């Protein structure tokens, strides 16, 4: 898997940054020629995860990249925060479970919206979520 183009690092520290995150991911998705449905799914997942980074992680960063694996092109977005981390990943990925006042579908829903979903978290050390969407 190779990186074709990086879109740099976007800090996520305020509500406006969630909007910026969506715009950045949408631009990447368009550059990668994802279909409209795939674009919307990826942007929505990015919106959820960026908000998680902000609300639960206390702010962090987003890195978006165009990647290539053989002939397939895709978009990879990494959300990183150094917040409190997630103690029980399985519980956090359960539909309807929320530590806040949300619907509890953000994390579990985003996993269904993308092709690849990886989450690393350690209590007290923060959380890193990597999502990938491949062009069909």
């Amino acid at each position, binding site marked *: 898997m190779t990186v074709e183009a990086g879109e740099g690092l976007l800090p996520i520290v305020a*509500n406006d940054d969630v*909007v910026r995150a*969506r715009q950045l991911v*949408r631009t990447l998705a368009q550059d990668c020629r994802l279909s*409209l*449905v795939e*674009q*919307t*799914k990826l*942007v*929505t997942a990015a*919106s*959820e995860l960026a*908000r998680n980074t902000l609300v639960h992680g206390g702010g962090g960063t987003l890195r978006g990249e165009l990647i290539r694996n053989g002939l397939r092109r895709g978009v990879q977005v990494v959300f990183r925060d150094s917040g409190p981390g997630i103690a029980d990943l399985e519980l956090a990925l359960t*539909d309807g479970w929320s530590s806040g006042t*949300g*619907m509890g*579908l*953000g994390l*579990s*829903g*985003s996993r*269904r*919206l993308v092709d690849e979903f990886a989450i690393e978290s350690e209590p007290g050390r923060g959380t890193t979520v990597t999502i990938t969407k491949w062009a069909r």
Partner: protein
Amino acid sequence: MADPDNSRQLIDLLSADAEDLSAEWVRIVSTTLRGRVSTAEIDQELRELYSALLAALRTGSLAAKDDAFAEVRALLTELSRTRARQGFTPSETAISVFALKQALEPALAKDPDGGSLRSYLQLSSLLDDLGLFTVETYARAREELISSQSEQLLELSTPVVKLWDGVICVPLVGTLDSARTMVVMEKMLQALIDTGSEQAIIDITGVPAVDTQVAQHLLKTVVAARLMGAECTISGIRPQIAQTIVALGIDFGDIATKASLADALRHALRRSGIEIGRRGDRVAK
């Protein structure tokens, strides 16, 4: 830093050729701004700044954050705000401060004495601080501008339109955050009362992505309308939005949703007992 001797030299340097130095300063700044601000304006701004700076230096202080520099900072704030509003870049704003160094160069050449060099360096670091202050103020002014614009947009982008007797519509465009939802909800609920409507249509054709937060806001608005005895239909659910909502696992329950505003209007009219058909159809019945 506040060595009285050096401070003295600095003031001497600045006051000896005050006229030449400020004139040169004005010249450099006007060249950079290329006539977008009149020279007279720059002249006035910079001369005021120059005398304020000199007055501050006479107190023996060299720290930009000191009380002595309060007037200098006030003038710089004014300058940055004006530049930000006129659409200048941060560099074009900061150059107003940094150009003084350039203006000082010839004066320094005249006097190759080490003392001047030292005081020049001190002044230089003071000007750097003031330059940074300018950029910060500039950025703050721009942010204020942007946030006031987004507030204006908030007001602009949420009209409530009456589609029919008893049917109102709220077309949503753009990002739906908590602040906007509040405005939308308030406006819609008020319009329901004002127009005596029992049907409300929330059209999300202009909302690019529906995530859980947007969905939650929509659901709350619908529930609030229901509490007032009104019925809500959400329209503008495009194929990509529908698929995303399903994948996310959001349940809209028994809330009526439609693909287009036309469908939603027909639904709302039917719910209020109005049947629409072609003229011919009615005769046939």
